């Protein structure tokens, strides 16, 4: 009976084209769109040499130290030497972020405030301030001039060493894909919901027929849920393969733990749907609405529409982060990708297991021993 029902439930689910669209094709489509839209965002964050023009005039020639200093910054600026008119034209066309002119004091001309302009200014300030330092030192200690202070200032030491926070890049884009997987897991709720509807005599004709059969309802239900979980897990793995293989999004390299998260996530989704269907006594359309609305709310809080939301919730209302299955699934992937320790990961997984147990228990207590006086 168990296998018989399992086989037929698999077929039922696979032939439900609409269900397959929402639980498999829709996430794949969203992943593709995310990838199209977001792939350039990190590139946009990368530093590109600031285009800057320097106006050639007599005052510039009078400041060879400045030209030398500017030459030492070729990884910062793309410099071109022009006349003032050319510089102005370039600025108007936004070909350069600003131009530098001595008239006779150092002056920076820009057409807006911004990052590039701030960097140019940072460099110019640096030049002025270093000169000021030299002047102060020489006033206090005139012998410094003979001890090569000017040369000393231009050869600067590097005071910073980079320490990376983790083995992976802090790339917020991956979080969008993690929440997408969380969404897919919870969309597995559609499958759980379908199974509960199919076994409740007051919700579907199939349910009425099954209740008539001389079989243990728990056995039938377990095999139905197993079928739903099987499909859900398969869909999730297809999605994961697509995201990793085709889109090239990094999930870290702990494949075993990633698979574990997928299994737990699928179970959470399927039992979540079953829980909703058993607790709320309304038609399937209404249940679907509730499922979509709650999934979307949870995914929003986990950062699917706005990645910072996850951080805001985690820091401001941590309890909400721990009570949100979508966030827990997202966080599991995040922890695997980004953290060096596994503490956070196992906390998430344990909490998810807690949710699975609660959802299943409630579903079980609602479904068992139901009798229908009339249908």
């Amino acid at each position, binding site marked *: 009976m168990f296998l018989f029902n399992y086989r037929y439930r698999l077929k039922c689910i696979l032939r439900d084209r609409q269900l397959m669209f929402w639980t498999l094709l829709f996430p794949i489509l969203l992943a593709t769109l995310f990838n199209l839209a977001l792939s350039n965002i990190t590139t946009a964050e990368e530093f590109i040499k600031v285009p800057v023009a320097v106006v050639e005039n007599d005052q510039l020639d009078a400041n060879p130290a400045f030209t030398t200093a500017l030459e030492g910054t070729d990884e910062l600026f793309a410099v071109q030497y022009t006349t003032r008119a050319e510089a102005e034209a370039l600025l108007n066309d936004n070909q350069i972020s600003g131009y530098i002119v001595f008239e006779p004091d150092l002056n920076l001309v820009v057409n807006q405030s*911004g*990052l590039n302009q701030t960097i140019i*200014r940072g460099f110019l300030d640096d030049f002025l301030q270093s000169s000021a330092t030299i002047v102060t030192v020489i006033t206090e200690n005139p012998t410094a001039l003979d001890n090569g202070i000017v040369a000393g200032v231009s050869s600067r030491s590097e005071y910073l060493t980079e320490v990376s926070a983790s083995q992976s890049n802090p790339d917020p884009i991956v979080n969008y894909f993690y929440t997408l997987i969380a969404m897919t897991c919870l969309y597995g709720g559609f499958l759980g919901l379908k199974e509960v509807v199919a076994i409740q005599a007051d919700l579907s004709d199939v349910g009425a027929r099954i209740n008539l059969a001389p079989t243990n309802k728990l056995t039938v239900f377990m095999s139905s849920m197993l079928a739903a979980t099987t499909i859900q897990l398969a869909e999730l793995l297809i999605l994961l393969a697509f995201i990793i293989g085709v889109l090239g999004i990094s999930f870290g390299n702990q494949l075993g733990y990633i698979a574990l998260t997928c299994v737990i996530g699928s179970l959470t989704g399927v039992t979540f749907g079953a829980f909703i269907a058993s607790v709320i006594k309304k038609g399937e359309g209404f249940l679907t609405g509730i499922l979509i609305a709650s999934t979307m709310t949870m995914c929003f809080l986990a950062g699917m529409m706005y990645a910072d939301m996850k951080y805001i919730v985690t820091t401001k209302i941590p309890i909400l982060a721990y009570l949100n299955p979508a966030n827990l699934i997202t966080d599991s992937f995040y922890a695997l990708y980004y953290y060096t320790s596994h503490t956070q990961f196992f906390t998430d997984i344990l909490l998810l297991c807690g949710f699975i147990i609660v959802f299943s228990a409630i579903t079980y207590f609602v479904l068992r021993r139901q009798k229908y006086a009339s249908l």
Partner: protein
Amino acid sequence: MQVYKAFFRIIQKNRSQIAIYLVVFMVLALLLTNAYTPPQDTDFTKTRFNIAFINEDGDSELVDGLKTYLGENANLVDLPDDPQQLQDALFFRQVVYILRVPKGFTAAMLNGQEVQLEKTIVPDSPSNIYMDLLINKYLNSAQTYFAYLPGLSQDQLVDYLKVDLAEETAVTVISGSSHSANAEKSGYYFNYISYSLFAILILGVCSVMLVFNDTDLKRRNLCSPIRSATMNFQMILGNLSFAVLTWLVLISASFVMYGSYMFTTNGLLLLLNSFIFTLAALSISYLIGNLVKSRGAMSAVANVFALGTSFLSGVFVPQELLGANVLTIASFTPTYWYVKANNEIANAVSFNAGNLQSIFTSMVLVLAFGVAVLGVTLVLIKQRRVEA
């Protein structure tokens, strides 16, 4: 006007599904347009990065001086010294640079030994370059003082540095741009409209078409004593009024949020552009309405279409951040041209022949999309009637 009335009765029946997209739009528009503050200003304002400053060394004037200096040029974010919390903050860009002053730093500096500060950064980012510049400058200047004025107390050093670092370059900002904050925000608002407009029109028109295209119902209607021309006229009127109504509802909030800006040339052009887009979207919805066979397929198509075109065309992510390939694909959708025109209108400080021509070209293209799709739909309907 039975047909016209029936049209709106069907819409009424589907109002909850349609309302979802209205609510989504209002939330999106409110949240994101208010969250966005353009960095434009007439005076020069430095870009300030959010950084975390963690001091493991004891309190010393040198470290305090550095901290104060950085505080003047960046926003110091207070974060607990916990690896995971720091990692989180960096991942979500709450800070873009974490500076750690190691134990014994001051002593080493004073003795002229080589020391290093530890930084944790977003790789390849401008923030990294700029902060490096600031910190290295401070410490190099300090080093110069230590080297050439031996016996200088930390107090004096910090004072000297303060004076030196107060030197600033004169910055001239040349811009005739009186870019109002509303311009950028309203641009976003009108871009977002395209998503909801598409979803609502597809859902609304499809749900009506599904009813009217039902074979039995169609046969019944054809033998009713109403002329088919009258019936078609009422259907067209129904579609148009539904589209205009949706448009009015969606733009209404813009008057509340941007007030008189909506009556400037920019505002009026945005309204005109969105109206033209509404017509094109209606035409596409009408085609989909004639193709879709079931309610399930209807919501799938509405979602795929609204989300797909929005993502590709730069509604959610600005067009300049999208790849060239994506934009090429997107240029086959009216949304792309609509968004392009919106951005140009919002960015325009004054209107001249050049930018007006580009804006109106986009509008004409959107309109052409609408007409072309309508033509296809009419042929399709005609063909079906012949076959039936």
